[in-house]
């Protein structure tokens, strides 16, 4: 129970914003809903109607010393907790982000950056079980984005003391984990035309290393990931290619994943866009398996609403070769943003 907490509330504008001099800033909420109709070709669809609600509470403000702070608390479908993060902007250093539960830090920022008009081929409604690079994002972490980099170059450094640790509340730690994973760090670089001079070209490069207890059965090394991507936008077209690799550090079972993906999109006008996206993942196991996901997509926006259609094919989903793991279907989605 806090004893000296200073809290003030005002009801300015008769609304939900609440601020006082002792608060760091204002808190607002945004959100929306995504409604979908999924039709599977060769398996039982069941009820095709899907609905995803999301709420994000955001706050921002400036401290007495001139540092800026921003808070985001996000909930996904059915009010399921998603993520909390705080970004502290120190004028001469850059951004320091303390993050819990998200997948948007470190190398995980570029798990799949190939262009799409809506979703990745493996994320548009047909479950694929694809393994992508995730780096240190599994546990609560700290990400640093320095602001003294050359123009056009963004660097992000992420560190997690225990990548397998559960998300602990304040005044708590995750405790012992049975996972072999220990501390982890990610490095991510993004270069735009302000650095290399070629307008429309964006280059990505990232690596991650998670220390692992090699004394634990089934592991003989650290987990290492790397990913590179090149994206080029010209006129209404955007094309991109990405390659990534994960060395699991295991001594048996799945030893490695190697992923390649590419996509092309075309903005017909300000509201309508079409795209094609393909992603392929090789799993190095006792029996090697290649999973492929391909999707054609159309997206149309009308104000705060968006309508999307995706035709999706997935072969060997979840890295399984039986016929039932070859899936395809059509997904219609309507979203509203508030």
């Amino acid at each position, binding site marked *: 129970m806090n*004893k000296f907490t200073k809290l003030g509330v005002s009801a300015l504008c008769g609304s*939900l914003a609440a601020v006082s001099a002792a608060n760091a800033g204002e808190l607002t909420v945004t959100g929306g809903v995504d409604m979908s109709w999924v039709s599977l070709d060769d398996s039982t669809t069941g009820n095709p109607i899907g609905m995803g609600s999301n709420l994000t509470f955001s706050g921002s403000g400036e401290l007495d010393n001139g540092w800026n702070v921003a808070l985001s608390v996000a909930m996904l479908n059915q009010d399921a907790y998603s993520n909390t993060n705080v970004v502290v902007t120190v004028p001469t250093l850059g951004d320091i982000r303390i993050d819990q*539960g998200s997948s948007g830090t470190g190398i995980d920022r570029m798990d799949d950056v190939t262009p799409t008009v809506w979703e990745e081929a493996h994320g548009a409604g047909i479950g694929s079980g694809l393994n992508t690079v995730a780096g240190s994002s599994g546990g609560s972490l700290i990400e640093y984005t320095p602001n003294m980099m050359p123009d056009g170059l963004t660097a992000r450094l992420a560190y997690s003391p225990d990548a397998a640790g559960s998300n602990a509340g304040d*005044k708590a730690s995750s*405790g012992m984990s049975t996972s072999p994973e220990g501390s982890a760090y990610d490095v991510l670089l993004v270069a735009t035309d302000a650095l290399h001079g070629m307008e429309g070209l964006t280059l990505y490069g990232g690596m991650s290393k998670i220390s692992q207890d090699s004394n634990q059965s089934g592991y003989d090394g650290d987990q290492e990931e790397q990913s590179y991507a090149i994206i080029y936008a010209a006129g209404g077209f955007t094309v991109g290619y990405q390659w990534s690799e994960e060395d699991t550090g295991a001594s048996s079972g799945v030893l490695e994943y190697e992923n390649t993906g590419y996509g092309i999109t075309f903005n017909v006008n300000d509201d309508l866009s079409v795209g094609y996206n393909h992603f392929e993942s090789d799993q190095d196991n006792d029996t090697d398996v290649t999973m492929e996901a391909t999707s054609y997509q159309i997206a149309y926006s009308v104000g705060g609403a968006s309508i999307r259609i995706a035709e999706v094919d997935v072969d060997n989903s979840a890295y399984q070769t039986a016929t039932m793991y070859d899936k395809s279907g059509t997904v219609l989605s309507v979203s509203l943003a508030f």
Partner: protein
Amino acid sequence: MNKLTKVGLSALCSSLAAISSANAGEMTVTGGVDMSWVSLGGGQGVTGNPIGIGSNLTFKGNGELDNGWTFGVTVAMLNQDAYSSTAVNLTMGSFGSLNFNQGDSGNGIDAYDDKMPTAWEEPWGAGLGTGIQLVKGVGANNNVQYTTPTVFGITMAVAVAPDMGSADVNDKGTASTNDNTGKGMDATINVNPSFGTEILSGLNLFVGGHYTEMYVDSTPSNDRYEAVGGVTLDIGPISLGYASSGIVTGKTTTATDVDWYKNHMYGVAFNVNDDLSISYGDHESQQGFVNPGDSRESVHMDVQSWQIAYSMGGASIRYAKIDASNASYQKTSMYDKDANVISVSLAF
């Protein structure tokens, strides 16, 4: 199901407001985040990932009825959007107030579990798990509390939970348990005997009691009783406090059952200036058994904490050094623990 509810939305001021003439009042949201780095020592074991993040959101509504009575509604979520509590407070002018409470710990004797002054948190609540037993009364159950107006510095409250130990249920629902607990009742008195003097304006005396009705069937036992009494004093920048509390569990037959707890606590806090404060607190808890044989001597747990807190605008930085001996009422050396906790909080 409401059939004639009228709802109107306005987006004035680009914020979260939702109001219409059919609504009882306004809703606001506040929240914040607490980030901590915990370093465990002693017999505690593995720290794991030391980063902890606690997010909290509180939705509040308030309004006024046609007869002039005012009301407030609070719905609170804690870490990772976990539901915490809902409370409705009805202020009836000079008749005092009624509070309907679900899941909170703010009613009855639970509000006095540890009111010792601190710069940040109680010694047992700053990041080192101790398993300490405190008075809680009806606070953890659906309950209703009546609070009198403050007269001559005296405020009294009575809280009732119709069935202790039952789960919190939604509206139009009921809950029952097959355990041996029945209704519970708390009564508390807080006295601020300033007598118009400056030096006594910071003096608070409080006392409270609780009982839980126990049914005697397969597990013979008596009613459960809890009590607390203490004093706090603010003199300028210094705050002092001392309190004692006790629990009689009502268990009588099984030798290894806990019969009672006795707690003593004190704390001192000093506000160096408007932003910086320091404190020291100690909370001692003794556990006794139904049959205190050779292997069941009473156990003393002791938790101490030094704390420093610094605020700058909406941000607060806190540090706590915590030592606990015989945590969880266990005597082996692994239950002698210590921790260093650094916390940063932002309020919005």
